[in-house]
Protein backbone atom coordinates (compact mmCIF):
# COMPACT_ATOMS: atom_id res chain seq x y z
CA UNK A 1 0.00 0.00 0.00
CA UNK A 2 1.42 3.32 -0.92
CA UNK A 3 1.83 6.01 1.71
CA UNK A 4 0.33 9.34 0.92
CA UNK A 5 0.66 12.53 2.95
CA UNK A 6 -2.15 15.01 2.39
CA UNK A 7 -0.36 17.64 4.45
CA UNK A 8 2.59 18.43 2.16
CA UNK A 9 1.33 21.78 0.89
CA UNK A 10 4.51 23.80 0.21
CA UNK A 11 4.51 25.45 -3.20
CA UNK A 12 0.99 24.43 -4.21
CA UNK A 13 -0.98 26.97 -6.23
CA UNK A 14 -4.64 27.84 -5.93
CA UNK A 15 -5.13 28.14 -2.18
CA UNK A 16 -5.93 31.85 -2.26
CA UNK A 17 -4.95 34.67 0.05
CA UNK A 18 -3.87 34.36 3.67
CA UNK A 19 -6.49 35.64 6.14
CA UNK A 20 -4.66 37.44 8.98
CA UNK A 21 -6.12 37.35 12.47
CA UNK A 22 -5.61 39.44 15.61
CA UNK A 23 -3.16 38.20 18.20
CA UNK A 24 -5.59 37.13 20.92
CA UNK A 25 -7.81 34.95 18.74
CA UNK A 26 -6.96 31.38 19.71
CA UNK A 27 -10.13 29.33 19.28
CA UNK A 28 -13.31 29.58 17.21
CA UNK A 29 -15.52 27.01 18.96
CA UNK A 30 -15.78 25.67 22.49
CA UNK A 31 -14.68 22.17 21.44
CA UNK A 32 -11.38 23.37 19.97
CA UNK A 33 -9.53 23.91 23.27
CA UNK A 34 -10.94 20.59 24.54
CA UNK A 35 -9.52 18.59 21.63
CA UNK A 36 -6.21 20.43 21.95
CA UNK A 37 -6.06 19.47 25.63
CA UNK A 38 -7.19 15.88 24.99
CA UNK A 39 -4.44 15.52 22.42
CA UNK A 40 -1.78 16.91 24.76
CA UNK A 41 -2.96 14.84 27.73
CA UNK A 42 -3.11 11.61 25.72
CA UNK A 43 0.27 12.37 24.18
CA UNK A 44 1.71 12.44 27.69
CA UNK A 45 0.57 8.85 28.22
CA UNK A 46 3.24 7.54 25.88
CA UNK A 47 0.94 5.35 23.76
CA UNK A 48 2.39 6.99 20.65
CA UNK A 49 5.08 9.55 19.85
CA UNK A 50 4.81 12.92 18.13
CA UNK A 51 6.00 11.56 14.79
CA UNK A 52 3.40 8.79 14.82
CA UNK A 53 0.74 11.38 15.63
CA UNK A 54 1.85 13.54 12.68
CA UNK A 55 1.65 10.47 10.45
CA UNK A 56 -1.88 9.75 11.68
CA UNK A 57 -2.97 13.30 10.87
CA UNK A 58 -1.30 13.70 7.49
CA UNK A 59 -2.78 10.45 6.15
CA UNK A 60 -6.39 11.36 6.96
CA UNK A 61 -8.23 10.92 3.65
CA UNK A 62 -10.30 14.08 4.17
CA UNK A 63 -7.36 16.19 5.46
CA UNK A 64 -7.90 18.94 2.89
CA UNK A 65 -11.56 19.42 3.82
CA UNK A 66 -10.99 19.62 7.59
CA UNK A 67 -10.26 22.60 9.78
CA UNK A 68 -7.10 22.30 11.83
CA UNK A 69 -8.69 21.17 15.07
CA UNK A 70 -10.90 18.76 13.13
CA UNK A 71 -7.65 17.24 11.89
CA UNK A 72 -6.54 16.93 15.52
CA UNK A 73 -9.84 15.29 16.45
CA UNK A 74 -9.78 12.75 13.63
CA UNK A 75 -6.06 12.14 14.15
CA UNK A 76 -6.62 11.43 17.84
CA UNK A 77 -9.49 9.08 17.05
CA UNK A 78 -7.23 7.17 14.64
CA UNK A 79 -4.43 6.92 17.20
CA UNK A 80 -6.82 5.67 19.88
CA UNK A 81 -8.23 3.03 17.54
CA UNK A 82 -4.80 1.91 16.30
CA UNK A 83 -3.43 1.60 19.80
CA UNK A 84 -6.46 -0.33 21.02
CA UNK A 85 -7.09 2.23 23.75
CA UNK A 86 -10.67 2.91 22.65
CA UNK A 87 -13.05 1.06 20.31
CA UNK A 88 -15.07 2.77 17.58
CA UNK A 89 -18.40 1.85 19.22
CA UNK A 90 -17.23 3.44 22.47
CA UNK A 91 -16.49 6.69 20.65
CA UNK A 92 -19.84 6.58 18.90
CA UNK A 93 -21.77 5.99 22.11
CA UNK A 94 -19.65 8.22 24.32
CA UNK A 95 -19.12 5.64 27.05
CA UNK A 96 -16.55 3.07 28.01
CA UNK A 97 -17.61 -0.53 27.27
CA UNK A 98 -14.37 -2.45 27.65
CA UNK A 99 -11.58 -2.46 30.18
CA UNK A 100 -8.99 0.30 29.91
CA UNK A 101 -5.43 -0.47 28.87
CA UNK A 102 -3.87 -1.32 32.21
CA UNK A 103 -0.60 0.58 32.21
CA UNK A 104 -1.88 4.08 31.57
CA UNK A 105 -2.12 6.70 34.26
CA UNK A 106 -3.77 10.01 33.51
CA UNK A 107 -1.81 13.23 33.51
CA UNK A 108 -2.73 15.19 36.65
CA UNK A 109 -3.39 18.92 36.78
CA UNK A 110 -0.45 19.45 39.13
CA UNK A 111 1.88 17.84 36.58
CA UNK A 112 0.90 20.08 33.66
CA UNK A 113 3.25 23.03 34.22
CA UNK A 114 6.30 20.78 34.61
CA UNK A 115 5.32 18.67 31.60
CA UNK A 116 5.05 21.71 29.35
CA UNK A 117 8.25 23.30 30.69
CA UNK A 118 10.19 20.06 30.17
CA UNK A 119 8.98 19.29 26.66
CA UNK A 120 10.56 16.44 24.76
CA UNK A 121 14.03 17.32 23.46
CA UNK A 122 15.08 15.35 20.37
CA UNK A 123 18.86 15.83 20.44
CA UNK A 124 20.73 12.56 21.06
CA UNK A 125 24.39 11.52 21.22
CA UNK A 126 25.71 11.16 17.67
CA UNK A 127 26.72 7.68 16.56
CA UNK A 128 29.43 9.02 14.26
CA UNK A 129 30.83 12.25 12.82
CA UNK A 130 28.62 14.52 10.73
CA UNK A 131 29.04 13.82 7.02
CA UNK A 132 28.50 17.44 5.98
CA UNK A 133 29.65 20.82 7.17
CA UNK A 134 28.45 24.37 6.51
CA UNK A 135 29.17 25.60 3.00
CA UNK A 136 29.01 22.16 1.43
CA UNK A 137 26.65 21.49 -1.50
CA UNK A 138 24.20 18.62 -1.25
CA UNK A 139 21.33 17.17 -3.26
CA UNK A 140 18.15 16.00 -1.58
CA UNK A 141 16.60 12.61 -2.23
CA UNK A 142 14.34 12.64 -5.28
CA UNK A 143 11.89 9.87 -4.49
CA UNK A 144 9.37 10.02 -1.67
CA UNK A 145 9.56 7.00 0.65
CA UNK A 146 6.54 4.81 1.38
CA UNK A 147 6.22 6.10 4.93
CA UNK A 148 6.11 9.26 7.03
CA UNK A 149 8.95 11.60 6.16
CA UNK A 150 9.81 15.26 6.70
CA UNK A 151 11.39 16.24 3.39
CA UNK A 152 8.72 18.32 1.63
CA UNK A 153 7.86 17.52 -1.98
CA UNK A 154 8.99 20.94 -3.27
CA UNK A 155 12.50 20.31 -1.88
CA UNK A 156 12.99 16.83 -3.40
CA UNK A 157 15.83 16.24 -5.82
CA UNK A 158 17.11 19.79 -5.29
CA UNK A 159 20.61 21.17 -4.86
CA UNK A 160 21.19 23.23 -1.78
CA UNK A 161 23.89 24.32 0.63
CA UNK A 162 24.44 23.16 4.17
CA UNK A 163 24.08 26.20 6.38
CA UNK A 164 23.84 24.89 9.93
CA UNK A 165 24.47 21.63 11.74
CA UNK A 166 21.98 21.03 14.57
CA UNK A 167 23.44 17.90 16.13
CA UNK A 168 21.95 14.41 15.94
CA UNK A 169 18.17 14.31 16.36
CA UNK A 170 15.57 11.57 16.67
CA UNK A 171 14.90 10.53 13.06
CA UNK A 172 11.24 11.19 12.34
CA UNK A 173 11.04 8.64 9.51
CA UNK A 174 12.01 5.78 11.82
CA UNK A 175 10.34 7.06 14.97
CA UNK A 176 6.94 7.45 13.30
CA UNK A 177 7.01 3.80 12.27
CA UNK A 178 7.85 2.45 15.70
CA UNK A 179 11.41 1.59 14.67
CA UNK A 180 13.06 3.46 17.53
CA UNK A 181 14.80 6.82 17.56
CA UNK A 182 17.70 6.03 15.17
CA UNK A 183 19.27 9.50 15.70
CA UNK A 184 20.70 11.14 12.59
CA UNK A 185 22.56 14.40 11.99
CA UNK A 186 20.21 17.26 11.22
CA UNK A 187 21.12 20.18 8.94
CA UNK A 188 19.60 23.40 7.73
CA UNK A 189 19.86 23.24 3.93
CA UNK A 190 19.22 26.42 1.99
CA UNK A 191 17.98 26.56 -1.61
CA UNK A 192 17.86 29.31 -4.18
CA UNK A 193 14.36 30.12 -5.44
CA UNK A 194 15.19 29.26 -9.07
CA UNK A 195 16.42 25.82 -7.96
CA UNK A 196 13.08 25.20 -6.28
CA UNK A 197 10.64 26.81 -8.68
CA UNK A 198 12.50 27.12 -11.99
CA UNK A 199 13.51 30.14 -14.00
CA UNK A 200 9.90 31.29 -14.46
CA UNK A 201 9.13 31.37 -10.76
CA UNK A 202 8.17 34.67 -9.11
CA UNK A 203 11.44 36.52 -8.59
CA UNK A 204 11.10 37.42 -4.97
CA UNK A 205 14.79 37.74 -4.09
CA UNK A 206 14.24 34.87 -1.70
CA UNK A 207 15.89 31.73 -0.44
CA UNK A 208 14.21 28.87 1.41
CA UNK A 209 15.64 26.43 3.90
CA UNK A 210 14.44 23.12 5.26
CA UNK A 211 15.80 21.12 8.16
CA UNK A 212 16.91 17.80 6.73
CA UNK A 213 18.25 14.64 8.36
CA UNK A 214 21.43 13.20 6.87
CA UNK A 215 19.73 10.23 5.15
CA UNK A 216 17.82 12.73 2.98
CA UNK A 217 21.08 14.08 1.51
CA UNK A 218 23.80 13.14 -0.96
CA UNK A 219 26.93 15.16 -1.84
CA UNK A 220 26.44 17.39 -4.90
Amino acid at each position, binding site marked *: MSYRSNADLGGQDGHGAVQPEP*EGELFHAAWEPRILALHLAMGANGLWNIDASRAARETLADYRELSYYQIWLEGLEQLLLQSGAVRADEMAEGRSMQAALPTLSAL*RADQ*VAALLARGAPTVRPARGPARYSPGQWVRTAAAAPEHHTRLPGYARGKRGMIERVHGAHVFADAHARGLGEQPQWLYTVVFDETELWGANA*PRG*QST*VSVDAWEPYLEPA
Partner: protein
Amino acid sequence: MHGPDQQHEHEHSTLSPLELRVRALETVLTQKGYVDPAALDALIDAYQTKIGPRNGAQVVARAWCDAGFRRWLLEDATAAIGSLGFSGRQGEHMVAVENTPRQHNLVVCTLCSCYPWPILGLPPTWYKSAPYRARAVKDPRGVLRDFGVQLAETVRIRVWDSTAEVRYLVVPQRPAGTGHLAAGELAKLVTRDSMIGTGLPLEPGGATTDASP
Protein backbone atom coordinates in the same frame (compact mmCIF):
# COMPACT_ATOMS: atom_id res chain seq x y z
CA MET B 1 -42.27 23.49 32.30
CA HIS B 2 -39.14 21.53 31.52
CA GLY B 3 -37.99 18.49 33.41
CA PRO B 4 -34.33 17.59 33.65
CA ASP B 5 -34.59 15.28 30.64
CA GLN B 6 -35.99 17.98 28.41
CA GLN B 7 -33.34 20.41 29.58
CA HIS B 8 -30.71 17.85 28.75
CA GLU B 9 -32.31 17.36 25.35
CA HIS B 10 -32.39 21.10 24.74
CA GLU B 11 -28.76 21.51 25.65
CA HIS B 12 -27.75 18.81 23.22
CA SER B 13 -29.85 20.16 20.38
CA THR B 14 -27.93 23.45 20.49
CA LEU B 15 -24.53 21.77 20.35
CA SER B 16 -22.83 21.20 17.03
CA PRO B 17 -22.05 17.66 15.88
CA LEU B 18 -18.37 18.38 16.48
CA GLU B 19 -19.06 19.60 20.01
CA LEU B 20 -20.97 16.39 20.73
CA ARG B 21 -18.24 14.24 19.21
CA VAL B 22 -15.49 15.85 21.28
CA ARG B 23 -17.62 15.61 24.43
CA ALA B 24 -18.24 11.92 23.75
CA LEU B 25 -14.52 11.36 23.30
CA GLU B 26 -13.65 13.22 26.49
CA THR B 27 -16.26 11.19 28.40
CA VAL B 28 -14.86 7.86 27.19
CA LEU B 29 -11.27 8.86 27.89
CA THR B 30 -12.22 10.10 31.36
CA GLN B 31 -14.22 6.96 32.20
CA LYS B 32 -11.24 4.84 31.21
CA GLY B 33 -8.97 6.86 33.44
CA TYR B 34 -6.79 8.02 30.54
CA VAL B 35 -7.40 11.71 31.14
CA ASP B 36 -8.28 13.85 34.14
CA PRO B 37 -10.63 16.74 33.21
CA ALA B 38 -8.83 18.98 35.72
CA ALA B 39 -5.60 18.43 33.79
CA LEU B 40 -7.38 19.36 30.56
CA ASP B 41 -8.51 22.61 32.19
CA ALA B 42 -4.95 23.27 33.36
CA LEU B 43 -3.57 22.68 29.85
CA ILE B 44 -6.08 25.07 28.30
CA ASP B 45 -5.46 27.67 30.98
CA ALA B 46 -1.72 27.49 30.40
CA TYR B 47 -2.10 28.41 26.71
CA GLN B 48 -4.82 30.97 27.32
CA THR B 49 -3.18 32.88 30.14
CA LYS B 50 0.52 32.02 30.54
CA ILE B 51 2.12 30.85 27.30
CA GLY B 52 1.73 33.33 24.47
CA PRO B 53 3.45 35.89 22.27
CA ARG B 54 4.03 38.33 25.12
CA ASN B 55 6.75 35.88 26.21
CA GLY B 56 8.52 36.22 22.87
CA ALA B 57 8.08 39.99 22.99
CA GLN B 58 10.08 40.04 26.23
CA VAL B 59 12.85 38.06 24.55
CA VAL B 60 13.01 40.43 21.57
CA ALA B 61 12.86 43.57 23.71
CA ARG B 62 15.72 42.26 25.84
CA ALA B 63 17.78 41.57 22.71
CA TRP B 64 17.09 45.11 21.50
CA CYS B 65 18.50 46.75 24.60
CA ASP B 66 21.12 44.27 25.81
CA ALA B 67 23.92 43.56 23.31
CA GLY B 68 25.25 40.65 25.36
CA PHE B 69 21.84 38.99 25.48
CA ARG B 70 21.39 39.58 21.73
CA ARG B 71 24.68 37.77 20.98
CA TRP B 72 23.70 34.92 23.29
CA LEU B 73 20.26 34.68 21.66
CA LEU B 74 21.76 34.45 18.17
CA GLU B 75 24.36 31.88 19.27
CA ASP B 76 22.29 29.70 21.61
CA ALA B 77 18.65 30.73 21.53
CA THR B 78 17.42 27.80 23.63
CA ALA B 79 19.65 28.80 26.55
CA ALA B 80 19.11 32.55 26.20
CA ILE B 81 15.32 32.16 26.03
CA GLY B 82 15.43 29.64 28.87
CA SER B 83 17.20 32.20 31.06
CA LEU B 84 14.01 34.30 30.90
CA GLY B 85 11.94 31.34 32.05
CA PHE B 86 10.57 30.17 28.71
CA SER B 87 11.27 26.58 27.72
CA GLY B 88 9.79 23.24 26.88
CA ARG B 89 7.17 21.78 24.63
CA GLN B 90 7.64 22.80 20.98
CA GLY B 91 10.52 25.07 21.91
CA GLU B 92 13.08 22.47 22.95
CA HIS B 93 15.53 23.49 20.21
CA MET B 94 15.32 27.18 19.40
CA VAL B 95 17.11 29.23 16.76
CA ALA B 96 16.75 33.02 16.62
CA VAL B 97 17.14 34.69 13.22
CA GLU B 98 17.65 38.42 13.03
CA ASN B 99 16.17 40.78 10.47
CA THR B 100 18.61 43.29 9.02
CA PRO B 101 18.27 46.13 6.51
CA ARG B 102 19.21 43.56 3.84
CA GLN B 103 17.44 40.39 4.97
CA HIS B 104 13.91 39.69 6.22
CA ASN B 105 13.14 36.31 7.79
CA LEU B 106 9.84 34.45 7.49
CA VAL B 107 8.95 31.21 9.33
CA VAL B 108 6.54 28.54 8.09
CA CYS B 109 5.81 24.85 8.54
CA THR B 110 4.66 23.55 5.17
CA LEU B 111 4.15 20.00 6.48
CA CYS B 112 1.98 20.68 9.53
CA SER B 113 2.00 23.56 12.03
CA CYS B 114 5.34 23.49 13.87
CA TYR B 115 5.61 26.71 15.88
CA PRO B 116 7.62 27.89 18.93
CA TRP B 117 4.94 27.44 21.60
CA PRO B 118 6.86 28.55 24.74
CA ILE B 119 7.45 32.03 23.31
CA LEU B 120 4.55 32.51 20.87
CA GLY B 121 1.83 30.27 22.30
CA LEU B 122 -0.54 28.43 19.99
CA PRO B 123 -0.23 29.16 16.29
CA PRO B 124 -2.86 31.40 14.70
CA THR B 125 -5.34 29.84 12.29
CA TRP B 126 -3.71 31.30 9.21
CA TYR B 127 -0.34 29.81 10.15
CA LYS B 128 -1.91 26.34 10.10
CA SER B 129 -3.97 26.92 6.95
CA ALA B 130 -3.29 25.92 3.36
CA PRO B 131 -2.82 29.41 1.84
CA TYR B 132 0.07 30.30 4.14
CA ARG B 133 1.71 26.88 4.12
CA ALA B 134 1.46 26.64 0.34
CA ARG B 135 2.59 30.14 -0.58
CA ALA B 136 5.12 31.19 2.05
CA VAL B 137 7.91 29.19 0.39
CA LYS B 138 7.06 30.07 -3.21
CA ASP B 139 5.70 33.61 -3.05
CA PRO B 140 6.80 35.14 0.25
CA ARG B 141 6.42 38.70 -1.04
CA GLY B 142 2.83 37.96 -2.00
CA VAL B 143 2.17 36.55 1.47
CA LEU B 144 3.65 39.65 3.06
CA ARG B 145 1.33 41.78 0.90
CA ASP B 146 -1.62 39.83 2.37
CA PHE B 147 -0.42 41.14 5.74
CA GLY B 148 -0.01 44.67 4.41
CA VAL B 149 3.78 44.46 4.52
CA GLN B 150 5.71 45.86 1.59
CA LEU B 151 9.47 45.40 1.70
CA ALA B 152 11.95 47.22 -0.49
CA GLU B 153 13.01 45.17 -3.52
CA THR B 154 16.57 45.27 -2.23
CA VAL B 155 15.64 43.31 0.91
CA ARG B 156 16.23 39.60 0.47
CA ILE B 157 13.70 37.26 2.05
CA ARG B 158 14.80 34.13 3.83
CA VAL B 159 12.06 31.57 4.43
CA TRP B 160 12.62 28.99 7.18
CA ASP B 161 10.51 25.84 6.70
CA SER B 162 10.34 24.15 10.14
CA THR B 163 10.51 20.57 8.92
CA ALA B 164 12.18 19.02 12.00
CA GLU B 165 12.12 19.82 15.75
CA VAL B 166 14.06 23.08 15.50
CA ARG B 167 11.81 26.09 16.10
CA TYR B 168 12.53 29.58 14.81
CA LEU B 169 12.08 33.02 16.35
CA VAL B 170 12.40 36.07 14.12
CA VAL B 171 14.09 39.00 15.84
CA PRO B 172 12.65 42.03 14.05
CA GLN B 173 14.58 45.26 13.63
CA ARG B 174 14.19 47.72 16.46
CA PRO B 175 12.02 50.63 15.28
CA ALA B 176 13.70 54.01 14.90
CA GLY B 177 13.07 56.58 17.59
CA THR B 178 12.90 54.08 20.45
CA GLY B 179 16.28 54.86 22.02
CA HIS B 180 14.60 56.29 25.13
CA LEU B 181 12.33 53.30 25.76
CA ALA B 182 13.00 50.65 28.39
CA ALA B 183 12.51 46.94 27.74
CA GLY B 184 8.97 46.91 29.13
CA GLU B 185 7.88 49.63 26.70
CA LEU B 186 9.76 48.07 23.81
CA ALA B 187 8.03 44.73 24.35
CA LYS B 188 4.68 46.40 23.64
CA LEU B 189 5.92 47.21 20.13
CA VAL B 190 6.77 43.58 19.37
CA THR B 191 3.79 41.92 17.70
CA ARG B 192 3.31 38.19 17.31
CA ASP B 193 3.43 38.54 13.53
CA SER B 194 6.74 40.41 13.69
CA MET B 195 8.24 37.35 15.42
CA ILE B 196 6.97 35.04 12.65
CA GLY B 197 8.06 37.45 9.95
CA THR B 198 4.61 38.28 8.58
CA GLY B 199 4.62 41.65 10.28
CA LEU B 200 6.83 44.46 11.47
CA PRO B 201 7.03 45.89 14.99
CA LEU B 202 4.76 48.78 15.86
CA GLU B 203 6.09 52.31 15.69
CA PRO B 204 6.41 54.07 19.05
CA GLY B 205 3.22 56.02 19.73
CA GLY B 206 1.69 54.22 16.75
CA ALA B 207 -2.06 54.18 16.55
CA THR B 208 -3.69 50.83 15.94
CA THR B 209 -2.11 47.65 17.17
CA ASP B 210 -2.89 43.99 16.76
CA ALA B 211 -1.11 43.19 19.99
CA SER B 212 -3.10 42.24 23.05
CA PRO B 213 -2.21 44.17 26.20
